């Protein structure tokens, strides 16, 4: 029984750690599926987290904060768009710049506005997304196994968690069942075919990166106004890159992206859980190995040793019509 309770707690932690990865991963999916590489997920998420926490602190509303986070993140996405679509600049370099810009501006502005060493003020009450108890939690709480699963895994999360998981089928639907999705995917595979079919490739790509911005903003808002109670310096801590790894690991597909993020989220929860724990037989587990697993797995996958991850064919290449 104790083992079971521990497992449920571990899995609940997995879900909480998966959410920002999942949102950022799906964000990257839109961008990369349209043919724009995005290593700036990290920066957009960070900027979104800062925007959300700032406005939530000022207005006391987590929802207004969330919209502000989305706004800031979309603005960063548009910088990436102008650089890499309009000016046909290098998408990697632009992504690096976005990451630095977010890392710098968030702390600089945070310090100017709040004078708390780059932090935003502590968020309380409605300024945060609080956990929601689903119906019948009390009644089910004492049911063995099921009760625990219901209370900790299914119920008891904030609204953004449910939004994040709902985004997966929604993305699947948009990508594979709508005209927009068809055109978006085609833009990333063969932009010339899209162009000859009378569709504006660059407009499609801009739409895609705006969605990327929205989802990164949500991910950021989750970090600063749901998971934590405020923004702290560099709070994304590489999650944008793990999301990128998950995206590759999922071969740019929404449903596998969910599982990749759950896997990476689990690894991260396990890493936290095993910190300093001595296990029988094995001894102390090298936590760092668990933490590095997402990256190692991605490298192995990219090298084609387990399956083959082939990204959108036109990814990273600006679309140029005239010779």
């Amino acid at each position, binding site marked *: 029984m104790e083992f079971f309770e521990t497992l449920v707690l571990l899995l609940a932690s997995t879900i909480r750690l998966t959410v920002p990865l999942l949102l950022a991963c799906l964000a990257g999916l839109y961008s990369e599926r349209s043919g724009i590489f995005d290593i700036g997920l990290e920066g957009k998420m960070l900027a979104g987290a800062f925007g959300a926490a700032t406005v939530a602190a000022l207005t006391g509303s987590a929802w207004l904060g969330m919209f502000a986070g989305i706004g800031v993140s979309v603005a960063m996405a548009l910088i990436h768009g102008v650089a890499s679509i309009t000016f046909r600049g290098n998408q990697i370099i632009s992504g690096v710049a976005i990451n630095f810009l977010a890392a710098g501006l968030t702390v600089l502005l945070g310090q100017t506005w709040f004078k708390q060493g780059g932090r935003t003020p502590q968020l309380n009450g409605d300024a945060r997304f609080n956990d929601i108890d689903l119906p019948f939690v009390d009644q089910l709480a004492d049911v063995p196994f099921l009760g625990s699963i219901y209370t900790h895994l299914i119920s008891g999360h904030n609204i953004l968690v449910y939004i994040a998981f709902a985004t997966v089928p929604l993305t699947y639907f948009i990508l594979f069942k709508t*005209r927009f999705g*068809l055109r978006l*995917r*085609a833009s990333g*595979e*063969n932009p010339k*075919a*899209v162009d*000859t079919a009378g*569709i504006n490739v660059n407009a499609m790509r801009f739409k895609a990166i705006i969605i990327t911005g929205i989802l990164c903003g949500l991910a950021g808002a989750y970090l600063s106004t749901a998971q934590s109670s405020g923004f702290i310096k560099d709070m994304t801590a590489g999650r944008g890159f793990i999301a990128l790894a998950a995206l590759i690991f999922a071969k740019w597909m929404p449903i596998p992206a969910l599982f990749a993020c759950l896997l990476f989220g689990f690894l991260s929860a396990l890493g936290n859980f095993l910190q300093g724990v001595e296990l029988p037989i094995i001894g102390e587990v090298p936590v760092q190995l668990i933490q590095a697993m997402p990256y190692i797995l991605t490298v192995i996958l990219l090298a084609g040793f387990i399956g083959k991850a082939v990204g959108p064919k036109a990814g990273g290449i600006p679309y140029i019509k005239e010779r």
Partner: protein
Amino acid sequence: MTDKSQANEQRPDSAAASQIAPALAIELSGINKHFGPVHANKDIDLKVARGSVHGIVGENGAGKTTLMSILYGFYTADSGEIRVGGKQVTINDSSHALELGIGMVHQHFMLVDNFTVLENIILGAEDSSLLQPSLDKARKVLAQLADEYELNVDPDALIEDLSVGAQQRVEILKALYRGADILILDEPTGVLTPSEADHLFRVLETLRAQGKTILLITHKLREIMAITDEVSVMRQGAMVKTLQTKDTDPAELAELMVGRRVLLRVDKGESVPGDVKLAVEDFVVKDDMGITRVKGINFEVRAGEIVGIAGVSGNGQSDMLEAISGMRKAASGKLLVKGQEIIIDGDDGAAKMRDMGVAHVPEDRQEQGLVVTFEQWENAILGYQDDDAYGEGVFLSIPAARAEANEHIKKFDIRPANNRLKVANFSGGNQQKIVLAREMSRDPDVLIVGQPTRGVDIGAIEFIHNQIVAMRDAGKAVLLVSVELDEIRSLADRILVMFDGHIVGEADPATATESELGLLMAGVSNDDVSVSNGASVSNQENVALKASDEKSAERNMQGESK
């Protein structure tokens, strides 16, 4: 989507065509298009009759594809008028062309490889924001079109799993699904097997019978003769002539395509062939896509002779050159240099061939033969960078390389005589001289030359030709590949004609006539019983061909007895 009423109209075959009002489907006048300094289309006029198959022929780079891309709205013309169905229009983008009923089957298919056939069909022609209704509709229309035109493809297959022929059918279906009345096909048979090509022609005939207008771009004369009603010839960006297909023949078209150039006389004595220096046996080469481009060829080149490979471009010459120069691994067969078999493995095979004394002037100097962002002296050692003459050990001696470069400049009269100038700033002729100087100065045993005078001005052509002959006279084995028939005829001691990956004949430049060679190059051969509508090869041509076959057979026997 297809107009059933048209299908019931009288079949406009060649006899009946004159009875139908000769309405024009397309009329282009004074079309000009520049790409930077390149004048790709010069004052083009073109009239295409409704319900006809209109061929457009010309060599690679003649401007055919540019012209069709303008008609399809992919490029905008700098000047000129376009009329579709008598109405003047400006076509700004592809969607506009589609609205006007113009569909295009591109040379490189505009398909998304990991989409299904249905998804590709509806891309850009979806009816609503949800896909399912469009997919259902497309499935029905596709079944209908398949019946009507023999255009069968599995609607749920992924493009990447389909054969090239099937992919092409998807392209045609895409255009028909959008209600195209005018269909442009750009080099449609370049990637097809013969049976797929035959199938395509049957489809085109059905389309014509249904009243569609077809523009067929190709450089294969056999296809023009087989299917078109009218044919327009382009050369170097200009429209040369439009002819009724029934009034012309491949030889005339070949001549118009290539242009009757002033035959450059090259003073050369009799060749004195020596030992075999270069030979290929049952040589098979595939391109990057895995398509077999060279289909089992045999020939040898002896010291002191120039063997010329003639042929219309795109018949496997490029892939053969790459394989012989060590840049590409042959799929099967043998490559022998001075009697020694060379096996290419790894991606540095070109170095191996150079070590064996094989120099190579590539077909495309800017893509392969030069690094145009490098200065001339740096290009003077490209391929020979490991040679101790240009620096001991790991170092590169700039003075030595520059001295070599100056030597080249002097010997080949490269202008401007400045080894510090970036190669991009030299003219085409001088760029070519930079390559030739490098490859000829190293005293190779074998010289492989591809398109030595492509894009080179007249003065330089003569110089380059003389240099090639000088190499022969110095006892080198020279393999010359050129699409310029005149060049082959004036330089080569023996001519091999390449068509569709095969060596289809051998000719003696002294006696072979231009039309004889033209027919071989056009791929007209005995087993080529025509596909349809009376475009069979005339008896006279068959006779000529037989004669040349016999001649080459004779020579082969002589060769063996030597």
